[in-house]
Structure formats: structure tokens, C-alpha cells
């Protein structure tokens, strides 16, 4: 089996327009959640989100590109440019043929859908722009990355709600580990902060009107975010031979299904997935220094996840750190695992563990070290990154310091 390392990372999200800004915000425990600036926000019951602000598509893309790139594709391309530039790779000949793109995304071009439904239903028009379909399809981002960087290997999009990015990165890891691919561009994106996207979530009555406070006894729900994070996964010998800077090693992955309930999480299966990821990575629970939690800030997720961590890691659960960065950037749904992986690589590479901000009151059902409010310096050798999606789909990654 081949070893898999990360040689590039890029992002745009509510905390920053690139990786350095995002990591600085995570170190500072900055909150990217604020009042939504979207059309018809006055008709929403939930008016906050982790929105990317001060971003001007016209300064990044030309008119022809914007006609084809939904906001989730724009976020993906900006992140991919940063990640691939850092890796120093260019894709020609055999390397291009053996390199692909697998991305996580849940909603596809939600802004494109919203805008065009308005056109036909609200404005009563009978004509839409010819590019609506290629713009909104949720593989559009993966395809545009493949086109911009000449990636001709396996390329597709994974949609497993809140676990999409973890599932995608797990596939990228498998492709390289098995020898099917040399380099995979992976991660995910989401741009669901439009009227229809927020209105749909409102219906479930699990959203907070004021803040995302994971693990805190007074938590009152999740807050949506938007953005992307993209990583360059590369076969270790290939990276070493060209003298690439290695950010971290991906050492294991596991995925399971609860086969039980469409929205309620399962402690038993969350624990089983973490155990399988550790087994795949050939590590013992005692080696895990940090877990990036799914940590949505809902009553149901956080207590279930903490109980699952206690089950999967045993006594060591009390000695490790676990935090939810959703408190800062919000829940990016299909893109969330990717942005959260940045907190994992920061812990491994820089020895800084991102905090769970907004933490106000201890909850006896979440009695772990959740790194409340302030980032912490610590040497971390192994991390897990959890994602437990609606639909009962679980995906956990394991990474190691290099």
C-alpha cells in the first residue's frame, strides 16, 4: 500500500480568503458568524450565518467564467488555486492522466437554483439563461478544477450531506493508497446561504438564532456557513522525490451507515466509525491527541458525539482535546469536513489546537476537554476528524504529523 501525504491546501470561508487568514482566525478564536447579507433576509426567521463577506467575484473571474461558475464553484476554484500553487505541481502527460479530483458538496448551485426559480415563478418569465444546468450541477466544481489544471484521472463529486467532504477525502486517500492515482485534488465546498437554502433549514427547527455554541449546556442549534477548502493529496514517494513540503500524512479512513434514522445520530455507529478509522490507520486510541468534532451545536449531536468518543477511545477520551470549529465558521454542510481539516493540519504541523468558541456553560453530557474559547499550544501526533451526516452516514479520517 502506498502512503498518502498532503502537499497543498487552500480555502475561502467566513474566517478568511486563504489558509493563512483562516488559521490566524482559528488561533485567535475569531467568530466569522454574523448577520446574513442576502436577498429577502427579512423574511427569514434565521438571519445569521458564516457568510463569506467582502468577496467580489468580478475581481477573480471574467464575465464568461461567472456565467458558468456558481458561487460554490467559485469558492472551489479559488481554494484549488491556492492549494495547487502551494504544492508546486503542474499536471502534464502521465501525471495528468494519473491525477484526479474528488470533491464533497451537498446542495450544488443553490444560488443558481434560487435565482432562476425566482425568474420563472416570481417574475413570471418563461426563459432562463442557457447555462443554468451546467452551472448548478453539483459536479460542476470538480469538472472546472479538472479543466483549469488538466487533471484527467478519476473525477467526481460525493454528496453525503454533512459528511460529503470527509467521504470525498476518504475516496481520494483510497485512490492514492491503492495505486490508482498519483495525486488527487480533494476537499469540498458549499454555497447554500441564499433565501431558499436558509429557509429549508429553518423548517427543521434545529437552527440557532444567535450563535453556534457546541458542547455548551446552553447551545441552541446549528448555524450555516459557506465556503470551500481544497487539499492536494499526493503519493508519499512522489512528493519526497520532488522535495515537496509535506503538511501532514493521511493514515486512515472509515465510513459506515447507521441504517436507522434519517436525522437522529447514533452513538454506537459514530463510535464504530472512529474505531474503524483507528484500525485502518493502525493506531491505538492513546496516540490520538486531538479530534476535530462534528460538533454541530445541536442538542442531539453534541451529547451523542461525546458519548461516542468516550466509547471509542475509552479512558483516553479524558486526556485528548476535542473541538468544534463550526463555532467560528459555521456548518458548511457538504464543505464542512474540508474546512475543518485545516484545523487538523494546524494541530499537527503548527502544534496549535483550534478552540470551541462561544462556550459558556459546562454540560455534564459533554464532559470532555473541548478546548473552550481559547486555542492551545500542544504537540499533537495523531488526529481524527469526524463527520456524522443526516441520513446516518458517518465518515472519519485519521492524520499523522510528519
Amino acid at each position, binding site marked *: 500500500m502506498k502512503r498518502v501525504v498532503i502537499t497543498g491546501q487552500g480555502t475561502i470561508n467566513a474566517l478568511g480568503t486563504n489558509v493563512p487568514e483562516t488559521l490566524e482566525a482559528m488561533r485567535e478564536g475569531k467568530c466569522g458568524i454574523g448577520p446574513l447579507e442576502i436577498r429577502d433576509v427579512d423574511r427569514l426567521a434565521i438571519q445569521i450565518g458564516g457568510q463569506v463577506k467582502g468577496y467580489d467575484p468580478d475581481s477573480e473571474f471574467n464575465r464568461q467564467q461567472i456565467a458558468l461558475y456558481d458561487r460554490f464553484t467559485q469558492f472551489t476554484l479559488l481554494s484549488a488555486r491556492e492549494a495547487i500553487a502551494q504544492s508546486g505541481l503542474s499536471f502534464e502527460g502521465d501525471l495528468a492522466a494519473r491525477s484526479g479530483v474528488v470533491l464533497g458538496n451537498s446542495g450544488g448551485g443553490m444560488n443558481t437554483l434560487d435565482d432562476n426559480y425566482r425568474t420563472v415563478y416570481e417574475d413570471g418569465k418563461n426563459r432562463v439563461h442557457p447555462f443554468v444546468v451546467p452551472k448548478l450541477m453539483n459536479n460542476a466544481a470538480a469538472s472546472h478544477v479538472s479543466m483549469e489544471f488538466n487533471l484527467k484521472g478519476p473525477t467526481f463529486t460525493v454528496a453525503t450531506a454533512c459528511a460529503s467532504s470527509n467521504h470525498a477525502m476518504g475516496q481520494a486517500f483510497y485512490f492514492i493508497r491503492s495505486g490508482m492515482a498519483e495525486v488527487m485534488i480533494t476537499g469540498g465546498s458549499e454555497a447554500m446561504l441564499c433565501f431558499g437554502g436558509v429557509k429549508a433549514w429553518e423548517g*427543521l427547527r434545529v*437552527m*440557532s438564532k444567535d450563535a453556534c455554541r457546541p458542547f455548551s449546556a446552553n*447551545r*441552541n*442549534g446549528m448555524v450555516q456557513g459557506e465556503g470551500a477548502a481544497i487539499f492536494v493529496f499526493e503519493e508519499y514517494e512522489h512528493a519526497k522525490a520532488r522535495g515537496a513540503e509535506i503538511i501532514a500524512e493521511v493514515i486512515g479512513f472509515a465510513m459506515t451507515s447507521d441504517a436507522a434514522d434519517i436525522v437522529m445520530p447514533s452513538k454506537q455507529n459514530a463510535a464504530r466509525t472512529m474505531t474503524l478509522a483507528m484500525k485502518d490507520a493502525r493506531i491505538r486510541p492513546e496516540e490520538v491527541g486531538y479530534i476535530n468534532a462534528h460538533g454541530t451545536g445541536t*442538542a442531539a449531536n453534541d451529547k451523542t458525539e461525546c458519548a461516542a468518543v468516550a466509547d471509542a477511545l475509552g479512558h483516553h477520551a479524558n486526556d485528548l482535546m476535542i473541538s468544534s470549529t463550526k463555532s467560528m465558521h459555521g456548518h458548511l454542510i457538504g464543505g464542512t469536513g474540508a474546512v475543518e481539516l485545516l484545523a487538523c493540519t494546524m494541530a499537527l504541523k503548527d502544534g496549535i489546537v483550534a478552540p470551541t468558541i462561544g462556550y459558556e456553560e459546562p454540560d455534564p453530557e459533554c464532559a470532555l476537554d473541548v478546548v473552550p474559547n481559547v486555542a492551545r499550544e500542544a504537540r499533537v501526533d495523531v488526529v481524527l476528524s469526524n463527520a456524522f451526516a443526516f441520513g446516518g452516514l458517518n465518515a472519519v479520517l485519521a492524520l499523522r504529523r510528519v
Partner: protein
Amino acid sequence: MAESVKDQVIAIIAEQAVLEPGDVKLDSTLEDLGIDSLGLVESIFAIEEAFDISVPFNANEPEQSEFDISSVAAIITAVEGLVAEQSGS
């Protein structure tokens, strides 16, 4: 003649619980009736639509919501209050 709030709420809960309205007792809890968290948010949605009201309810803190869901009778009282408060708005 218009149905009373009580009868309409009971009809909504009965439909969600797959019971006859006559089998929904005023002192029943939603749990007694086999209504889970998804069934609850669906019932609240049906109540909002039936009475054209907005029900303040967050599934993360049901006990802190102004909307009392502790029994069928409590829900009827809460809906009557909201209808009185929000009618004509």
C-alpha cells in the same frame, strides 16, 4: 360551523400518530402517542399552516420554548393563545 381549535389540534396530532381522534386523550404526551422528534416538527408545521400562526419552537431546547408541548391539553392551550395573539396580524 368552524371546528374548534381543540378539535383541529387533536385531528392534526391524531393524523401524525396514525390514531383515531377519539383515541387522543387530553392528558396524553406526544411520547405516549408515539410521536418522535420529526413527527413533532411536522405537527408544528401543520398547526402553523392550519391556523396561519407562527409557533416559537426550537427542537434543541424544547423545555425553554414558549410553546408548551408537555401534553395534548398544553398544546391546545398554547395554540389558542397564539391564535388570539396573532389573529388579525
